Protein backbone atom coordinates (compact mmCIF):
# COMPACT_ATOMS: atom_id res chain seq x y z
CA UNK A 1 0.00 0.00 0.00
CA UNK A 2 1.30 3.47 -0.91
CA UNK A 3 2.57 5.54 1.97
CA UNK A 4 0.86 8.90 2.23
CA UNK A 5 2.25 11.89 4.14
CA UNK A 6 0.71 15.29 4.82
CA UNK A 7 2.53 18.25 3.34
CA UNK A 8 4.03 20.38 6.16
CA UNK A 9 4.59 23.38 3.91
CA UNK A 10 2.36 26.30 2.97
CA UNK A 11 1.52 24.51 -0.29
CA UNK A 12 2.15 27.70 -2.21
CA UNK A 13 4.27 28.39 -5.26
CA UNK A 14 6.12 31.64 -5.89
CA UNK A 15 4.57 33.99 -8.43
CA UNK A 16 6.84 35.06 -11.26
CA UNK A 17 6.57 38.72 -12.06
CA UNK A 18 8.20 40.70 -14.83
CA UNK A 19 10.85 43.10 -13.59
CA UNK A 20 10.17 46.75 -14.26
CA UNK A 21 11.76 47.96 -17.48
CA UNK A 22 15.16 49.51 -16.86
CA UNK A 23 15.54 53.04 -18.22
CA UNK A 24 18.09 53.46 -21.04
CA UNK A 25 19.36 56.61 -19.43
CA UNK A 26 19.03 58.37 -16.09
CA UNK A 27 18.74 61.79 -17.77
CA UNK A 28 15.77 63.63 -16.36
CA UNK A 29 14.96 60.86 -13.90
CA UNK A 30 14.50 61.09 -10.15
CA UNK A 31 16.67 58.70 -8.18
CA UNK A 32 15.55 57.61 -4.70
CA UNK A 33 18.23 56.72 -2.18
CA UNK A 34 16.90 54.41 0.53
CA UNK A 35 18.87 54.20 3.77
CA UNK A 36 17.85 50.97 5.56
CA UNK A 37 18.99 52.49 8.90
CA UNK A 38 22.13 50.40 9.35
CA UNK A 39 25.25 52.04 10.69
CA UNK A 40 27.15 54.09 8.09
CA UNK A 41 24.61 53.55 5.34
CA UNK A 42 24.38 57.35 5.21
CA UNK A 43 28.12 57.59 4.48
CA UNK A 44 27.68 55.45 1.39
CA UNK A 45 24.52 57.22 0.23
CA UNK A 46 26.00 60.71 0.77
CA UNK A 47 28.75 59.76 -1.66
CA UNK A 48 26.29 58.32 -4.17
CA UNK A 49 24.23 61.51 -3.93
CA UNK A 50 27.31 63.62 -4.66
CA UNK A 51 28.00 61.62 -7.82
CA UNK A 52 24.42 61.68 -9.01
CA UNK A 53 23.87 65.39 -8.42
CA UNK A 54 27.19 66.12 -10.17
CA UNK A 55 25.63 64.46 -13.19
CA UNK A 56 22.64 66.77 -12.92
CA UNK A 57 20.21 64.17 -11.58
CA UNK A 58 17.47 64.84 -9.07
CA UNK A 59 17.87 62.84 -5.86
CA UNK A 60 15.38 62.11 -3.10
CA UNK A 61 16.45 60.60 0.21
CA UNK A 62 14.41 58.05 2.21
CA UNK A 63 15.07 56.12 5.39
CA UNK A 64 13.50 52.99 6.90
CA UNK A 65 12.55 53.31 10.59
CA UNK A 66 14.64 50.20 11.39
CA UNK A 67 16.75 47.77 9.44
CA UNK A 68 15.13 44.81 11.23
CA UNK A 69 11.75 45.14 9.54
CA UNK A 70 10.54 45.46 5.95
CA UNK A 71 10.01 49.02 4.74
CA UNK A 72 6.52 50.23 5.70
CA UNK A 73 4.06 50.12 2.82
CA UNK A 74 3.55 53.90 2.92
CA UNK A 75 7.26 54.43 2.46
CA UNK A 76 7.38 52.00 -0.45
CA UNK A 77 4.42 53.77 -2.03
CA UNK A 78 6.03 57.17 -1.57
CA UNK A 79 9.25 56.00 -3.24
CA UNK A 80 7.35 54.40 -6.10
CA UNK A 81 5.31 57.54 -6.80
CA UNK A 82 8.14 60.06 -6.46
CA UNK A 83 11.05 58.23 -8.05
CA UNK A 84 11.91 56.47 -11.30
CA UNK A 85 14.84 54.53 -9.89
CA UNK A 86 15.84 53.55 -6.36
CA UNK A 87 19.17 52.63 -4.84
CA UNK A 88 19.00 50.79 -1.50
CA UNK A 89 22.03 50.84 0.74
CA UNK A 90 23.14 48.02 2.94
CA UNK A 91 25.92 48.96 5.32
CA UNK A 92 27.96 48.11 8.47
Amino acid at each position, binding site marked *: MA*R*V*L*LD*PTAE*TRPDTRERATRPDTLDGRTVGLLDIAKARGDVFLDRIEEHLTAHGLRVERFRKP*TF*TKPAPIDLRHEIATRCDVVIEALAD
Partner: protein
Amino acid sequence: MTVAPDDLVSRRVTLGAAEDEAEAMFERGWTDGLPVVAPTPERVAHMLTGTSRDPGEVVAVVPPNLVPCTVEKVAVNAVLAGCRPEYLPVVLAAVEAACTDAFNMHGLLATTWFSGPVVIVNGPVAHAIGMNSGVNALGQGNRANATIGRALQLVVRNVGGGRPGEVDRATLGQPGKYTFCFAENEADSPWEPLHVTRGFGAGESTVTLFAGEAPRGFADQLGRDAPQLATNLADALLTVWGTRAVMAFDAFVVVSPEHARVFRDAGWSKQQVVDELHERMLRPGHELVRGSGGIAEGVDPAFAEAQIPKFRPGGLNLVHAGGGAGLFSAIIGGWASGALGSDIVTVAVRD
Protein backbone atom coordinates in the same frame (compact mmCIF):
# COMPACT_ATOMS: atom_id res chain seq x y z
CA MET B 1 -10.06 17.48 19.18
CA THR B 2 -10.95 14.20 17.56
CA VAL B 3 -10.54 14.40 13.81
CA ALA B 4 -10.69 11.56 11.30
CA PRO B 5 -7.47 11.27 9.28
CA ASP B 6 -9.50 11.50 6.08
CA ASP B 7 -10.89 14.88 7.15
CA LEU B 8 -7.49 16.55 7.29
CA VAL B 9 -7.08 19.03 4.46
CA SER B 10 -3.31 19.23 3.96
CA ARG B 11 -2.06 18.11 0.56
CA ARG B 12 -1.33 14.38 0.33
CA VAL B 13 2.19 13.44 -0.71
CA THR B 14 2.36 9.85 -1.92
CA LEU B 15 5.75 8.21 -1.71
CA GLY B 16 6.94 5.86 -4.42
CA ALA B 17 7.30 2.19 -3.57
CA ALA B 18 11.10 2.36 -3.77
CA GLU B 19 11.44 5.67 -1.88
CA ASP B 20 13.00 5.63 1.58
CA GLU B 21 10.69 7.57 3.86
CA ALA B 22 13.38 9.48 5.76
CA GLU B 23 15.32 10.29 2.61
CA ALA B 24 12.15 11.45 0.86
CA MET B 25 11.53 14.01 3.58
CA PHE B 26 15.11 15.30 3.42
CA GLU B 27 14.83 15.61 -0.36
CA ARG B 28 11.63 17.63 -0.10
CA GLY B 29 13.37 20.10 2.20
CA TRP B 30 11.09 19.46 5.18
CA THR B 31 13.81 18.98 7.78
CA ASP B 32 16.23 21.12 9.75
CA GLY B 33 19.08 18.75 8.91
CA LEU B 34 18.09 16.08 11.42
CA PRO B 35 15.72 13.21 10.59
CA VAL B 36 12.01 13.86 11.13
CA VAL B 37 9.01 11.70 11.97
CA ALA B 38 6.79 10.99 8.93
CA PRO B 39 3.57 13.05 9.19
CA THR B 40 1.03 10.42 8.22
CA PRO B 41 -2.63 11.43 8.40
CA GLU B 42 -3.04 9.06 11.37
CA ARG B 43 -0.19 10.65 13.33
CA VAL B 44 -1.43 14.18 12.60
CA ALA B 45 -4.96 13.23 13.67
CA HIS B 46 -3.51 11.80 16.88
CA MET B 47 -1.48 15.00 17.42
CA LEU B 48 -4.67 17.05 17.14
CA THR B 49 -6.18 15.22 20.11
CA GLY B 50 -3.81 17.37 22.20
CA THR B 51 -5.85 20.51 21.62
CA SER B 52 -9.51 21.47 21.68
CA ARG B 53 -8.92 23.98 18.91
CA ASP B 54 -10.41 23.46 15.46
CA PRO B 55 -7.85 22.18 12.94
CA GLY B 56 -8.90 24.90 10.51
CA GLU B 57 -8.38 27.77 12.95
CA VAL B 58 -5.66 30.16 11.86
CA VAL B 59 -3.06 30.42 14.63
CA ALA B 60 -0.86 33.08 13.15
CA VAL B 61 0.47 34.59 9.94
CA VAL B 62 3.95 33.16 9.64
CA PRO B 63 6.83 35.20 8.27
CA PRO B 64 8.74 35.65 6.07
CA ASN B 65 6.17 34.67 3.44
CA LEU B 66 3.26 35.85 5.63
CA VAL B 67 1.33 32.60 5.33
CA PRO B 68 -1.82 32.06 7.43
CA CYS B 69 -1.02 28.93 9.42
CA THR B 70 -3.75 26.64 10.73
CA VAL B 71 -3.78 24.43 13.81
CA GLU B 72 -3.54 21.48 11.41
CA LYS B 73 -0.34 22.77 9.78
CA VAL B 74 1.21 23.31 13.18
CA ALA B 75 0.22 19.74 14.07
CA VAL B 76 1.87 18.38 10.90
CA ASN B 77 5.10 20.12 11.86
CA ALA B 78 4.78 19.01 15.49
CA VAL B 79 4.69 15.42 14.21
CA LEU B 80 7.79 16.07 12.12
CA ALA B 81 9.55 17.48 15.19
CA GLY B 82 8.73 14.43 17.32
CA CYS B 83 6.20 16.03 19.68
CA ARG B 84 3.60 14.18 21.72
CA PRO B 85 -0.02 15.44 21.47
CA GLU B 86 0.07 17.01 24.93
CA TYR B 87 2.89 19.33 23.76
CA LEU B 88 0.74 20.78 20.96
CA PRO B 89 -0.88 23.60 23.00
CA VAL B 90 2.60 24.83 23.96
CA VAL B 91 3.76 24.70 20.33
CA LEU B 92 0.64 26.60 19.24
CA ALA B 93 1.32 29.30 21.83
CA ALA B 94 4.95 29.52 20.75
CA VAL B 95 3.93 29.97 17.10
CA GLU B 96 1.42 32.62 18.12
CA ALA B 97 4.05 34.50 20.15
CA ALA B 98 6.72 34.25 17.44
CA CYS B 99 4.44 35.73 14.80
CA THR B 100 3.51 38.91 16.67
CA ASP B 101 4.74 42.24 15.35
CA ALA B 102 6.45 42.82 18.69
CA PHE B 103 8.55 39.66 18.48
CA ASN B 104 9.42 40.33 14.83
CA MET B 105 10.27 36.80 13.70
CA HIS B 106 10.91 38.08 10.17
CA GLY B 107 13.74 40.32 11.27
CA LEU B 108 15.07 37.75 13.69
CA LEU B 109 15.26 35.26 10.87
CA ALA B 110 16.87 37.69 8.45
CA THR B 111 19.50 39.04 10.78
CA THR B 112 23.16 38.18 10.35
CA TRP B 113 23.37 37.92 14.17
CA PHE B 114 23.36 34.57 16.02
CA SER B 115 19.95 34.83 17.60
CA GLY B 116 16.85 32.67 17.30
CA PRO B 117 13.65 32.17 19.28
CA VAL B 118 14.25 31.01 22.87
CA VAL B 119 11.10 29.46 24.36
CA ILE B 120 10.63 29.61 28.14
CA VAL B 121 7.66 27.70 29.53
CA ASN B 122 5.96 28.60 32.81
CA GLY B 123 2.98 27.40 34.82
CA PRO B 124 1.38 24.00 35.43
CA VAL B 125 1.75 22.80 31.83
CA ALA B 126 5.53 22.50 32.17
CA HIS B 127 5.28 19.84 34.86
CA ALA B 128 2.21 18.22 33.30
CA ILE B 129 4.01 17.46 30.04
CA GLY B 130 7.26 16.48 31.69
CA MET B 131 9.49 19.39 30.78
CA ASN B 132 12.95 19.69 32.26
CA SER B 133 13.81 22.70 34.41
CA GLY B 134 16.53 20.95 36.43
CA VAL B 135 19.77 19.16 35.62
CA ASN B 136 20.87 20.03 32.05
CA ALA B 137 17.76 22.19 31.57
CA LEU B 138 19.28 23.95 28.57
CA GLY B 139 20.73 20.76 27.13
CA GLN B 140 19.66 17.59 25.39
CA GLY B 141 17.71 14.59 26.60
CA ASN B 142 14.19 15.77 27.40
CA ARG B 143 11.64 15.11 24.68
CA ALA B 144 9.31 18.02 25.46
CA ASN B 145 12.10 20.60 25.70
CA ALA B 146 13.74 19.29 22.54
CA THR B 147 10.73 18.90 20.29
CA ILE B 148 8.67 21.99 21.23
CA GLY B 149 11.49 24.34 20.25
CA ARG B 150 12.15 22.27 17.15
CA ALA B 151 8.49 22.33 16.10
CA LEU B 152 8.46 26.13 16.22
CA GLN B 153 11.53 26.28 13.99
CA LEU B 154 10.01 23.77 11.56
CA VAL B 155 6.83 25.87 11.29
CA VAL B 156 8.94 28.92 10.44
CA ARG B 157 10.89 26.86 7.91
CA ASN B 158 8.12 24.90 6.27
CA VAL B 159 5.09 27.17 6.55
CA GLY B 160 6.77 30.58 6.62
CA GLY B 161 9.48 29.64 4.14
CA GLY B 162 12.33 30.86 6.36
CA ARG B 163 15.38 28.84 5.39
CA PRO B 164 19.09 29.29 6.09
CA GLY B 165 20.89 30.88 3.18
CA GLU B 166 17.62 32.31 1.88
CA VAL B 167 15.86 34.75 4.22
CA ASP B 168 17.88 33.41 7.19
CA ARG B 169 21.15 35.28 6.67
CA ALA B 170 22.95 34.39 9.92
CA THR B 171 26.71 34.78 9.59
CA LEU B 172 27.37 31.86 11.94
CA GLY B 173 24.08 30.92 13.58
CA GLN B 174 24.20 28.75 16.68
CA PRO B 175 23.06 25.26 17.76
CA GLY B 176 20.02 26.68 19.59
CA LYS B 177 18.45 27.35 16.20
CA TYR B 178 17.61 23.64 16.03
CA THR B 179 15.72 24.00 19.29
CA PHE B 180 16.00 26.18 22.40
CA CYS B 181 13.22 25.54 24.89
CA PHE B 182 13.16 24.98 28.63
CA ALA B 183 10.93 25.41 31.66
CA GLU B 184 11.54 27.57 34.73
CA ASN B 185 12.07 25.79 38.03
CA GLU B 186 9.32 27.63 39.85
CA ALA B 187 8.97 25.34 42.86
CA ASP B 188 12.43 26.02 44.30
CA SER B 189 12.84 29.60 43.11
CA PRO B 190 13.38 32.42 45.59
CA TRP B 191 11.38 34.67 43.29
CA GLU B 192 8.04 34.89 41.56
CA PRO B 193 8.20 33.08 38.21
CA LEU B 194 8.81 34.83 34.93
CA HIS B 195 5.19 34.80 33.78
CA VAL B 196 4.05 36.40 37.04
CA THR B 197 6.68 39.12 36.64
CA ARG B 198 5.21 39.63 33.18
CA GLY B 199 1.67 40.07 34.48
CA PHE B 200 0.14 36.58 34.30
CA GLY B 201 -1.38 34.59 37.13
CA ALA B 202 0.75 31.97 38.87
CA GLY B 203 -1.79 29.30 37.94
CA GLU B 204 -1.71 30.18 34.25
CA SER B 205 0.56 28.44 31.77
CA THR B 206 2.53 30.57 29.35
CA VAL B 207 5.31 30.61 26.82
CA THR B 208 7.72 33.50 26.75
CA LEU B 209 9.76 34.07 23.62
CA PHE B 210 13.08 35.86 23.61
CA ALA B 211 15.32 36.55 20.62
CA GLY B 212 18.46 35.02 22.07
CA GLU B 213 21.90 33.75 21.20
CA ALA B 214 23.43 30.60 22.61
CA PRO B 215 23.84 30.53 26.39
CA ARG B 216 27.25 31.32 27.79
CA GLY B 217 28.51 30.15 31.12
CA PHE B 218 29.17 32.39 34.10
CA ALA B 219 30.97 31.04 37.15
CA ASP B 220 31.26 32.47 40.64
CA GLN B 221 32.36 29.71 42.97
CA LEU B 222 34.16 31.47 45.78
CA GLY B 223 31.83 34.26 46.78
CA ARG B 224 29.03 33.68 49.29
CA ASP B 225 27.42 37.09 49.54
CA ALA B 226 24.96 38.74 47.19
CA PRO B 227 26.77 42.06 46.55
CA GLN B 228 29.92 40.23 45.51
CA LEU B 229 28.01 37.86 43.24
CA ALA B 230 26.14 40.77 41.66
CA THR B 231 29.40 42.60 40.98
CA ASN B 232 30.94 39.60 39.27
CA LEU B 233 27.78 38.86 37.26
CA ALA B 234 27.50 42.52 36.19
CA ASP B 235 31.04 42.35 34.80
CA ALA B 236 30.12 39.30 32.76
CA LEU B 237 26.91 40.91 31.48
CA LEU B 238 28.85 43.86 30.14
CA THR B 239 30.17 41.60 27.38
CA VAL B 240 26.76 40.97 25.79
CA TRP B 241 27.20 41.82 22.08
CA GLY B 242 30.57 43.28 23.03
CA THR B 243 31.44 45.70 25.79
CA ARG B 244 30.74 48.73 23.59
CA ALA B 245 27.06 47.95 23.00
CA VAL B 246 24.70 49.78 25.36
CA MET B 247 20.91 50.04 25.60
CA ALA B 248 20.56 48.09 22.34
CA PHE B 249 20.43 44.42 23.33
CA ASP B 250 18.44 42.67 26.05
CA ALA B 251 19.62 39.64 28.05
CA PHE B 252 18.32 36.82 30.18
CA VAL B 253 20.23 35.36 33.09
CA VAL B 254 19.31 31.75 33.83
CA VAL B 255 20.13 31.76 37.52
CA SER B 256 21.02 28.31 38.85
CA PRO B 257 19.80 27.11 42.25
CA GLU B 258 23.18 27.58 43.93
CA HIS B 259 23.49 31.18 42.77
CA ALA B 260 19.82 31.81 43.55
CA ARG B 261 20.48 30.59 47.11
CA VAL B 262 23.05 33.36 47.59
CA PHE B 263 20.46 35.96 46.64
CA ARG B 264 17.77 34.22 48.70
CA ASP B 265 19.98 34.21 51.80
CA ALA B 266 20.50 37.95 51.38
CA GLY B 267 16.75 38.52 51.03
CA TRP B 268 17.12 40.09 47.60
CA SER B 269 13.94 40.13 45.52
CA LYS B 270 14.17 39.60 41.78
CA GLN B 271 13.71 43.32 41.20
CA GLN B 272 16.45 44.10 43.70
CA VAL B 273 18.88 41.79 41.91
CA VAL B 274 18.06 43.50 38.60
CA ASP B 275 18.46 46.96 40.17
CA GLU B 276 21.77 46.04 41.80
CA LEU B 277 23.05 44.69 38.48
CA HIS B 278 21.95 47.82 36.61
CA GLU B 279 23.73 50.02 39.13
CA ARG B 280 26.97 48.06 38.78
CA MET B 281 26.84 48.25 34.99
CA LEU B 282 26.62 52.05 34.77
CA ARG B 283 29.72 53.32 33.00
CA PRO B 284 31.06 56.79 32.20
CA GLY B 285 30.41 57.71 28.58
CA HIS B 286 33.98 58.82 27.93
CA GLU B 287 35.06 55.19 28.32
CA LEU B 288 32.57 54.09 25.68
CA VAL B 289 32.69 56.72 22.95
CA ARG B 290 33.93 55.74 19.53
CA GLY B 291 37.70 55.63 19.39
CA SER B 292 38.24 55.57 23.15
CA GLY B 293 40.61 52.89 24.39
CA GLY B 294 41.81 52.38 20.84
CA ILE B 295 38.48 50.79 19.80
CA ALA B 296 36.49 52.15 16.86
CA GLU B 297 33.19 50.70 18.10
CA GLY B 298 31.36 52.83 20.61
CA VAL B 299 28.69 55.38 21.39
CA ASP B 300 28.27 58.84 19.91
CA PRO B 301 30.76 61.34 21.41
CA ALA B 302 27.78 63.44 22.51
CA PHE B 303 27.35 60.92 25.37
CA ALA B 304 30.89 61.40 26.71
CA GLU B 305 29.72 63.12 29.89
CA ALA B 306 26.78 60.78 30.57
CA GLN B 307 26.56 57.77 32.86
CA ILE B 308 25.44 55.03 30.51
CA PRO B 309 23.44 51.92 31.50
CA LYS B 310 24.22 48.62 29.79
CA PHE B 311 20.58 47.57 29.33
CA ARG B 312 17.39 49.52 28.71
CA PRO B 313 14.72 49.44 31.47
CA GLY B 314 13.16 45.97 31.35
CA GLY B 315 15.98 44.71 29.18
CA LEU B 316 17.56 42.48 31.81
CA ASN B 317 15.53 39.48 32.95
CA LEU B 318 16.06 36.61 35.37
CA VAL B 319 14.72 33.08 35.24
CA HIS B 320 15.49 30.21 37.62
CA ALA B 321 16.55 26.80 36.29
CA GLY B 322 19.27 24.20 36.47
CA GLY B 323 20.65 21.37 38.55
CA GLY B 324 21.26 21.58 42.27
CA ALA B 325 25.04 21.45 42.06
CA GLY B 326 27.16 24.13 40.40
CA LEU B 327 27.78 27.77 41.24
CA PHE B 328 27.18 28.61 37.60
CA SER B 329 24.55 30.59 35.76
CA ALA B 330 23.93 31.18 32.07
CA ILE B 331 23.72 34.45 30.21
CA ILE B 332 21.60 34.50 27.07
CA GLY B 333 22.37 37.62 25.09
CA GLY B 334 19.69 39.12 22.88
CA TRP B 335 19.31 40.83 19.56
CA ALA B 336 18.31 44.39 18.61
CA SER B 337 15.72 45.20 21.25
CA GLY B 338 12.38 46.93 21.39
CA ALA B 339 10.66 48.65 18.49
CA LEU B 340 13.95 48.62 16.57
CA GLY B 341 14.11 44.84 16.70
CA SER B 342 12.38 42.35 18.99
CA ASP B 343 10.50 42.58 22.26
CA ILE B 344 10.03 39.72 24.71
CA VAL B 345 6.53 38.30 24.20
CA THR B 346 4.53 36.12 26.62
CA VAL B 347 1.29 34.43 25.64
CA ALA B 348 -1.02 32.09 27.52
CA VAL B 349 -1.16 28.40 26.63
CA ARG B 350 -4.73 27.43 25.70
CA ASP B 351 -6.10 23.91 25.87
